């Protein structure tokens, strides 16, 4: 299979690198780095020496991966410039630990604003009560004085009323009535 005709990966059985061999070479970890002085060449490395097609493909893909890293890094750095620096977790953590204190402060503030209102309300209530009691007292006094006057009038009326004859003696027990005294004197004579 011609490698230029299809994007499918050509197995080594057809004369080219396998997926794993290609991956190992591309991976480029320390064990896979071609170092002719330290060790013998692997079959994949030997193949690269004889197959220009695989060698070119490996080289271009390796370059593309390096470029991918460089470009991604540059892009991320440019995006990072528009982003604020990471907020210090220490400060955030302190904020979290202080959260109960914030609640307490808010509660105190609420209480502080509520107490004067309550006091004002109580004062107004007290004033209203005082006014009401004062009005009641005035009314009572007026009523009391009016009732006293009425009672006195009744007494006066009763006192000034004419005494019946049968009750005349009782009406003047000291004998101040001349008529009765005269009558008794005449009877003695």
């Amino acid at each position, binding site marked *: 299979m011609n490698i*230029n005709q299809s994007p499918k990966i050509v197995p080594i059985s057809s004369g080219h690198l396998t997926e794993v061999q290609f991956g190992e070479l591309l*991976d480029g970890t320390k064990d896979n780095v071609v170092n002719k002085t330290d060790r013998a060449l692997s079959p994949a490395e030997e193949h690269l020496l004889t197959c220009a097609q695989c060698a070119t493909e490996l080289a271009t*893909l390796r370059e593309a991966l390096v470029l991918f890293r460089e470009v991604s890094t540059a892009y991320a750095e440019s995006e990072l410039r528009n982003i604020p620096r990471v907020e210090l977790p220490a400060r955030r953590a302190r904020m979290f630990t202080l959260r109960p204190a914030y609640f307490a402060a808010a509660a105190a503030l609420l209480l502080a604003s509520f107490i004067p209102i309550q006091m004002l309300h109580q004062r107004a209530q007290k004033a209203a009560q005082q006014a009401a009691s004062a009005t009641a007292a005035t009314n009572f006094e007026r009523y009391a004085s009016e009732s006293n006057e009425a009672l006195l009038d009744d007494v006066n009326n009763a006192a000034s009323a004419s005494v019946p004859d049968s009750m005349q003696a009782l009406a003047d027990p000291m004998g101040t009535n001349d008529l009765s005294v005269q009558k008794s004197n005449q009877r003695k004579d």
Partner: protein
Amino acid sequence: MATENISTFPNGLAIDMEERANPLEDLDTVVALYQPRVFRFLLANLRDRDAAETLTQETFLRAWTARDSFREDCAVGTWLIRIALNLARDHTRTGRFRFWKNAAVHSVDAADVASFVPSSEVSSESRLIAQQQVAAIWQTVAGLSQRQRTIFLLRFLEEMDIPEIAATTGLPLGTVKSHLYRALNVVRAHHLNQAKEQK
């Protein structure tokens, strides 16, 4: 190395005399050093600017919260990428991510990325080819499965070696290799296809 910091007392008790300072305590330095790297990985993985920004913030917050659990069995950068990867996984599982992915409102355009090809290319034609190559790889990587994409990016963007990727992802070495080679195979196929079209 470690023996320099160890003093043996008469009773035979060895005590580490110098308490090694946790590098995560100096958060300003950690952020300055690793924020670009974490953001780059998340941006390439999620292809969503806003999500990458949010999760970068979240990565450092989590790292700060869990700094006592950092045992220096790996590099700080690797540890941060591991946190970022877990956050990205959680994020991609949410319905909101799927919705915005479909809407493609915040998604990164491959052409935008490709426009950052350095101008040092010898000719405008070769620069254009380079841009097309980068855009093609970006698009191909976007089409990979979540696991293949992650491993590919850890290898070729973050330049981690296979054992480091295995430690970061929690996958066996063999699994990492097979996913990486499959991902490379897909990228290679698209690359060849593009080369054919250019001819």
